[in-house]
Every structure is written in C-alpha cells, then in structure tokens.
C-alpha cells in the first residue's frame, strides 16, 4: 500500500471505491499487527531483564538473552510478512502458519520465563 497510499494523501482525487475499502480494513489490520509487535517487544524486554536477573552463569545468560531476541525477531518477521500482504487491495486470509508462529512465540516466552523461575529459589 505504501507508495500509492502516500500519493493519495495530498488532497488528490480519491481512488475508485472498488479498489479501496472505505472501512480501511487492511489499514486497521496492519496497525493491529504493529501494536502486537510492540506488545511483543515489551514482553521481550521484560523477558531479557528476567534472564539478566536470573543469576545464571555468564555464557548461559548470553545464550538465553540471544534466544529471547531471536523469538522477538521471528515474531516481527512474521508480522512484517503479513503487513506486506496488506498492500493488496483484497488481502488473502491470514495463513494459519503465521498465526501459529506468533502464538508459539508468545507461548515460548511464557514457558522460558517459567523455566527461569525454577533454579533461582
């Protein structure tokens, strides 16, 4: 949507309605993905902080922190892929693989956090 949408902003003639949904559904869906990636970033930062506070030996700490970063990157890449398909006039339905991937990242962060709680006490 990027370039064509930008061109439409400067008060030019509106595009034909057949091409553009007046409810801005793809736009709203794209923003929903963006919000979700931001939420995931907050959780990843907290998870990283959790790792740093766990008192694990240095190399383990670094590995776990890298793993947290990797999970967030996977999340963001999946979201980016989806946001790109929103550029189409009528985007195809969300592939189940992407849905499973982002949900899996969330579950992974939760499971990792729970696992970190075990040795510290």
């Amino acid at each position, binding site marked *: 949507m990027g370039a064509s949408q930008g061109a439409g902003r400067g008060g030019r003639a509106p595009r034909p309605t057949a091409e553009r949904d007046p409810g801005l559904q793809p736009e709203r869906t794209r923003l*929903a993905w963006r919000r979700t990636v931001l939420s995931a970033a907050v959780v990843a930062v907290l998870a990283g902080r959790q790792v740093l506070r766990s008192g694990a030996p240095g190399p383990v700490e670094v590995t776990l922190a890298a793993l947290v970063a990797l999970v967030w990157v996977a999340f963001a890449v999946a979201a980016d892929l989806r946001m790109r398909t929103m550029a189409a006039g009528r985007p195809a339905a*969300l592939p189940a693989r992407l849905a499973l991937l982002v949900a899996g990242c969330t579950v992974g962060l939760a499971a990792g956090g729970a696992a970190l709680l075990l040795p510290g006490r």
Partner: protein
Amino acid sequence: MGPGIRLWFSPGRVREEGTTPDYRFSLANERTFLAWLRTGLALVGGGFAVDQFLPRLHGSLRLAFTVVLLVGGALCALRAVNHWVRCERAMRRGEDLPLSRFPAVLALCVGLLAVAVVVLTLIGWTN
C-alpha cells in the same frame, strides 16, 4: 475446543470447506485474533512484572502469581489461534460464530488476581 485442534496441524483443510467469505470479515477475525494475542502478551508481561517489580511480596506468593500469569498468557495465546480457526471455519460454512465462556472466565480470573495483589500489598504480607 475439540475438532478445532485437528485444523491447527492441517490448516489447508479450512480452505477446502465452504466458500471464501468477504475479505473484510476475515480481516476482522484476524484483528480479533491479534487482540487476543495481545491480551496473552500482556498477561505474560504482567507475570514478568510481578516477579521483577514486587520484590517485597512474599517469595512463594510472588512465584504463584508469576506462574499463574505466565500460564494464563500462554493459554490465552493458544486459545486465540483456536478461536480464530473456528471462526474462520464457521464463516466459510455459513454457520453462526462459536460462543465461548473464555472471556468471562478470563475476566473473573484477572479481576480476582488483581484484588488479591492489592489486598496482599495493603495488609503487608511481605518479607
């Protein structure tokens, strides 16, 4: 939840059924999925926050709250996928959207948890 789970592992099968709904309905379903996913992320983040930012809460209590929030967040994320698949299938088949007790249960649990944390902090059940 039952029949939906099979669809998780063979997602292509959803597309074989019924007719493709208006793309706007699919996108609305996708946004609902994302909203539930954010709810799950918020619970997971809340679990980390309880562990990291309530240091004076009694150790085992803090552990319990943290684990409950982390597990709740993970369940929320899994349920988001499940509900999304079921809604997508219902739309393709032209059926009613699935009903669910999950939102009410989740609201109750989160409310109880919040009250518990406030009360425990107020009466000073801390280290």
